[in-house]
């Protein structure tokens, strides 16, 4: 594997929730955080993994003939899997597949450029790199973003901010917009929910704001964890006092239950994959509560936006 390649685990065209206009979103695999509510759990581990979409399996048994390590559920231990790919090759139903496809920046940009006519038609449409955390691949990202800008394509980076500042330095010249997550202001709680404290994340966004980058802050509203009045209020203060409101807007993303169904469905490993969803059953916020939080930020003069429920 050449270092400039990155593992792409999904490409979504006509992505309408990842920035302005019609976009193509490229999802890269691997993330330094382990948020309990992660919506793309397959994307946490940067390593290649074997997946099994059971719904597609037609029970032909072809995989059992090429791999001796499969159990009766057609799964295997992670350490036994050499990622040889033979089971994927023989699976005509497409049930077995690799989680990621390694792409060079050129390959990724070729896919992106195919829809340029739509980006142009929709004002500021373009590409969004997301993840996982796309910025753990600085070489790939710098080159891919540069090529997109060269092709006249609007670029957006969707990031958790949990990467070294030097990475931001490298991509800043080629990034038109950042979608930047702020989850929790309390460093201890941040560590408890995501596995890391938030010092670097907050440092980075301050530097980005100082450099006049275009930033949309996104707050995933997780019941009881990030959607507390205390947390939202603290984020509001941070944006107003530390970032001096030098952002385009803050978006509140109400909780949805979609993520739960992804857990445990697609791994081919008995001892790996994304594991069980560790959150108890949570109820999405009421529209009233979201608008309460919205008003809370608005009162602090923070530019805020929340999609109508």
């Amino acid at each position: 594997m050449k270092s400039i390649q990155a593992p792409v685990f999904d490409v979504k065209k006509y992505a309408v929730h990842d920035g302005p206009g019609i976009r193509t979103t490229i999802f890269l695999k691997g993330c330094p955080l382990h948020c309990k509510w992660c919506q793309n759990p397959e994307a946490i581990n940067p390593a290649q993994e074997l997946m099994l979409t059971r719904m597609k399996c037609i029970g032909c048994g072809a995989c059992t003939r090429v791999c001796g390590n499969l159990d009766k559920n057609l799964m295997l231990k992670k350490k036994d899997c050499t990622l040889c790919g033979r089971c994927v090759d023989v699976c005509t139903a497409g049930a077995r597949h690799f989680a990621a496809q390694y792409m060079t920046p050129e390959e990724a940009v070729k896919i992106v450029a195919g829809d340029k006519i739509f980006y142009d038609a929709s004002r500021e449409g373009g590409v969004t790199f997301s993840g996982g955390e796309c910025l753990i691949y600085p070489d790939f990202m710098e080159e891919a973003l540069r090529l997109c800008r060269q092709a006249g394509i609007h670029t957006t980076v969707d990031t958790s901010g949990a990467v070294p500042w030097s990475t931001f330095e490298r991509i800043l010249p080629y990034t038109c917009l950042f979608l930047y997550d702020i989850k929790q202001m309390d460093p201890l709680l941040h560590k408890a929910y995501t596995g890391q404290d938030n010092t670097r994340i907050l440092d980075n966004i301050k530097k980005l704001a100082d450099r006049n980058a275009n930033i949309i802050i996104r707050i995933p509203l997780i019941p009881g964890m990030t959607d507390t009045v205390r947390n939202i209020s603290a984020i509001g203060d941070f944006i107003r006092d530390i970032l001096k409101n030098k952002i385009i807007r803050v978006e509140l993303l109400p909780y949805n239950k979609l993520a739960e169904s992804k857990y445990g469905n697609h791994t081919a490993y008995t001892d790996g994959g994304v594991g069980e969803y560790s959150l108890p059953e949570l109820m999405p916020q009421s529209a009233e509560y979201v608008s309460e939080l919205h008003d809370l930020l608005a009162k602090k003069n923070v530019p805020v936006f929340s999609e109508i429920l």
Partner: protein
Amino acid sequence: MTNRINTLRELFFAGAHKKYRQESLNLSILDDETKGLPFPIRKAMAFSLALEKMPIFLLDGDLICGGKTVYQLPTYITDEEIKWGNHNFETRGYNHNFDNCFNLGQDERGFALNDSSIPAYYKVLPLGLPALIAEAEKRMETAETDAQKTYYESVIMTNTAAIKLMARYEEMVRTMEANESDETRKGELHQIAENMAQLQKGAPKTFWQACQLMYFIQFLIWVEGGYLIPLGRTDQILYPYYQKDIESGKITKDFAFEILEAFFMKLNYEVDRTHGEDIKINSDTGQSITIGGVDPITGDDVSNELTMMILDAKCDMRVTDPKVHLRVNQNTPESIWKKAAYLNSLGMGFPTYENDDAIIPAFMNHPEYTLEDARDYAASGCWEMTIQGRSFNRNLGGVCCLRCLEWALNDGQYFLGVPNADTAQGLIDDRYGIRTGYPEWFDTYEKLFNAFKVQMKHTIDMTSSYLNRAMISPSPFYSSMMEDCMELGRDFDAYGVRYTETDFQLASLSNCADALYVIRKLVYEDKEYTLREFTDILKNDWAGHENLRQRILNDFPRFGNDIPEVDSIANEIVQYYIQEVTKHRNPDGQTYRARVTSATSYVYGSQILGASADGRHAREFYSDNLSPMMGADKNGPTAIVKSCGEIDFSHCAGGAVLDMKFHPSALKSEEGRDKFIALLKTYFKLGGMQTQINVLDNKVLVDAKKHPENYRDLIVRIWGFSTYFVEIPEKFQDHIIARSTLAF
């Protein structure tokens, strides 16, 4: 929605209007004397008698008079005529199994009833019915032939009957007025009676009267036997009346809106009485209205306040009729786009979009049309493009691509044997297709593709010869609402209308392109199978070859994913199809028109087909209209748009319809709708002609199937119109549910 409209809507769902229906009056106009009269005169007599005797009514709070209450005209066709008629000419045997002809309405002789022609409301409203009668009388004096005299007489009789029915309505409403205690309603009833009085004397003078006359003509055409009756460019036709009344302060905008909604409500009365034998689906009424578009003379966009108002009414009412078609072009105002996208987001399948910038040039690529007429096109039926008031549209023939490929692989025979052998016509030694040879003979892909083309040509030639022999029943009232019939003294059956259009359809295009790609790759390039082996696998419906089928479904490129290798095959098929279809002329001398739509055939036509090389099982539904095969569209709507953009529709004057489906979340916010608009604009820039949009939430549909009682007004768009989800047959419901899981 005002209280009045809400009440009228509740009354409609409760079926209040159905109480007045009398199926047949059990009358006859035939006696020794009348038996020998010309057919059109007898039909006019029957129509007149029906109007004289039919029950009339006005529901509480209603503002518009009228409503069909009788479903069979008094007997006017003699036994002799029935005996010598062309029985089920367009129906059993030949059409369903062979050429996809539609089985629509006929009179007792088997003569086709008229449909899909848009009355010239733009001409008739400024004149009024008395002026039509006067003109017919004048023309009768100088008419040269007996046939013309007969025609004018039948026009006079039917229009006189219509005016007499107005008088009956006036009298009834005046009685209601006298008995009404509520002062407001009394005033309304007075005006309704005055409206009827004015329309007996002359042309409508107000917006209210214009809507009233339009509805009156509309339902009387249904009484005469017409169906699938579109209304034309309604925002243009009604605007002068609206503008005058608003400017003079005669009515408020709110009341104008209420009149419009009351008028639209009435159009829903016949949604449960559609035609067709085994394809009867509620709301298949063809009551399309077309809004927006350009001026016939200047070519400028002419969207107006009524365009917006009509979109608003459709947002408001949640009923199926009328179906709204929005004509868009480069100059369509942003406000119209936004309102239309909002209407789409409500999920009812309105509006359908028609692209002026592609459709008008396609008309102009046909030798018959003038630019002025082409610019005045409107949607009829589902999405047929015709010239309002000037087109007599017949859309009966169809080509199913997969069937042609099946015949090419099987020397002209179906894999599954002769369908309905007992009633079959058109068989040549057990073949519906033509003999093109055995798989062993096709040693190159080009030879196979040629055989496929021969089968396609055969279908088109045979079908057109049958279509050209179709007999048409005269319709004096309906035809008097068309341009040219009056001037020429000719009914529909004598081709009095300016343009007689015969349209072909092309179904299962995406499946066929996928299938041809698979065969080219597996048989001719990779040589994994011989064509004989592969054909046998298909004949046996993939038995023992599920792995191959899965590989085809999962690993092969499919139409709709922006993959030029497949898209170009689709284009090649379409170009050949257009070339062959437009070689034919109908008895009026006009070139046949090609269209890419499937209508119902994806459900019914698929039942007689064996497995196809694109991984489809025998009898499985194929794709509808221009859409990629269900499940094949893995890359979202931009890829579909680009694939369809690869096809050259510039000579496809009948239109080409792309179905798109979205999840409600994609259109919920204004931002989301702006992106949707950008997507549509891009498609139209690439030469796309027409799109219809479904915004579906799988969970809602599944629940609606389980608990229909909670979803009586859940409206979805099926092949070419919007209908109530809970009322359609289960297999259509399942198909829509399956599609909705793939919504973007």
